[in-house]
């Protein structure tokens, strides 16, 4: 039964991907993978967490169908590894899930064939497969079915027509190799495995920080003093900076492009780096026994203040970036800055929780990688090219039409619509027409495996 399922999946894999571009096929592959994983790991699929991650994986597959973006494909792959890793070990951290998922996908079958039996310390080779029997159960029924099809063809003209319509001409050596690749992939993933000792080490490591043996009051007193002076000075500095920064934002309502450009490009990078360094300093100060020192309240309060001030700094950068977007339009780099700010803010909040609840650095890694994964999945759901074009046409005070034309095909239909509404120079109109023509040609030649949401839109017109 298992072999039949895997062989059928391999057949579908080749139908979906052989000589095809990415489109609907990736979603169908996601569905097929989830079905195979659910059949072979039915107990694991009773957990709500696993079902949730399977749902995320399918959603990213749908995102690829709706807008065939590289980000959606990356999110789909990462969700795939996460789901497989989760099935191999439900309680491990998300980065260990990625490692387990990647390893299972790459060499799951090979690992299972050489599983080391800890008790016996021997390498267990898998049972020998009876190839003669396997050939018998495939070839004999197939030969008999073909003979009977030949007999029935002569007895019924409708059946004869039906049989004649079946066309296997697309099957060739390369098609079979792709099917072989699919079979190997499904064999690898159907029973997920774990990477040791990384997984057991991760399971052993908790989130809490404990007092160590070298707890010494005089040393901690010195550390506490150093922490207070350092963080207090940094607090004063950031307050002064914030005052000047807010004054700059409030007084410059209509700023020149060059001022904003230098502010945003050099300024924001430096500020983001300063926040990351701030988190590293706090992690260093609160790395050990200072967390358990009775008189650490002042340094803790200063640290909380500094985190809150850094969060305000993040907001001020977000405001500057938003103004920049408003004046000069939305671009990938500007969206990237916003994503970076969201991640930095998450980092600041988790650092605050870490200090307050005396958690260790693994807690930060676990929570922040999870946050990064969520941000990736959410970002993959959005058709950025469409929204960039839509925003720049409708809301931005100025825009670069060549930038919009150079974006992927996801904004082509919108660009075509906007030709008439905005005063665009002839050269750009010609480029848009060219882009539209190429894209519609590509959509019309798409096979059902390569279908995209834009195909449906085009058919409706």
């Amino acid at each position, binding site marked *: 039964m298992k072999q039949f399922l895997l062989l059928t999946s391999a057949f579908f894999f080749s139908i979906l991907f052989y000589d095809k571009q990415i489109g609907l096929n990736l979603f169908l592959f996601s569905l097929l993978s989830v079905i195979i994983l659910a059949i072979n790991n039915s107990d694991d699929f009773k957990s709500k967490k696993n079902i949730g991650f399977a749902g995320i994986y399918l959603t990213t597959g749908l995102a690829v169908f709706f807008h065939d973006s590289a980000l959606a494909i990356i999110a789909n792959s990462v969700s795939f590894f996460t789901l497989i890793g989760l099935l191999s070990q439900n309680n491990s951290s998300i980065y260990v899930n990625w490692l387990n998922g990647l*390893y299972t996908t*790459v*060499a799951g079958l090979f690992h299972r064939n050489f599983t080391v039996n800890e008790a016996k310390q021997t390498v267990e080779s898998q049972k020998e497969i009876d190839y003669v029997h396997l050939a018998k159960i495939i070839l004999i029924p197939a030969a008999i079915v073909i003979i009977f099809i030949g007999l029935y063809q002569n007895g019924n003209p409708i059946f004869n027509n039906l049989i004649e319509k079946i066309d296997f001409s697309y099957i060739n050596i390369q098609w079979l190799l792709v099917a072989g690749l699919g079979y190997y992939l499904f064999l690898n993933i159907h029973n997920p495995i774990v990477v040791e000792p990384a997984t057991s080490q991760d399971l052993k490591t908790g989130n809490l920080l404990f007092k160590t043996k070298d707890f010494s009051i005089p040393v901690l007193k010195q550390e506490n003093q150093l922490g207070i002076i350092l963080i207090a000075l940094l607090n004063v500095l950031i307050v002064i900076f914030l005052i000047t920064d807010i004054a700059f934002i409030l007084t410059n309502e209509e700023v020149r492009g060059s001022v904003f450009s230098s502010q945003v490009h050099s300024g924001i990078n430096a500020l983001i780096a300063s926040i990351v360094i701030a988190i590293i300093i706090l992690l260093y100060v609160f790395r050990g026994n200072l967390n358990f020192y009775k008189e650490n309240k002042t340094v803790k309060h200063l640290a909380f203040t500094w985190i809150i001030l850094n969060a305000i700094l993040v907001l001020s950068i977000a405001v500057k970036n938003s103004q920049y977007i408003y004046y000069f339009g939305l671009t990938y780099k500007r969206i990237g800055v916003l994503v970076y700010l969201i991640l930095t803010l998450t980092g600041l909040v988790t650092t605050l929780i870490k200090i307050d609840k005396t958690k260790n650095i693994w807690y930060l890694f676990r929570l922040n990688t999870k946050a990064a994964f969520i941000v990736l999945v959410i970002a993959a759901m959005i058709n950025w090219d469409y929204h960039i074009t839509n925003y720049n046409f409708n809301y931005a005070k100025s825009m670069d039409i060549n930038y919009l034309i150079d974006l992927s095909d996801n904004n082509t239909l919108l660009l075509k619509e906007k030709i008439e509404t905005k005063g665009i120079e002839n050269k750009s109109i010609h480029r848009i027409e060219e882009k539209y023509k190429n894209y519609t040609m590509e959509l019309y030649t798409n096979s059902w495996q390569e279908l995209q949401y834009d195909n449906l839109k085009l058919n409706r017109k």
Partner: protein
Amino acid sequence: MVALIIFGISFILLATYTIIRISIACVFWSFNTSTNAKYIFKRCFPYYIIVLTSICIGFIITFNNSILVIYYFSSVYFLALFLWRRKIKPSKKSFAVEPNQTHLP
């Protein structure tokens, strides 16, 4: 010309085999000689194969999914698996025990 092509292909295959063989040997050399092969497999193989696969996929993407490149790097991947298999599978060679030759001086 045919001889040159055969020589070229043989050279590439031999070079590939040698590089993979050396890369696996390096993994084993980094451990103590007495360390169990299964232990090394458990510790290092996952990372080795993930890195190797990433490099192979990287090259395939760089060369725009050219069929020849796909075939070559798929062979590299399977060759690496085969060589690891040879390293960890217990040898089936049987050594005959020499009888105690009492007549010898």
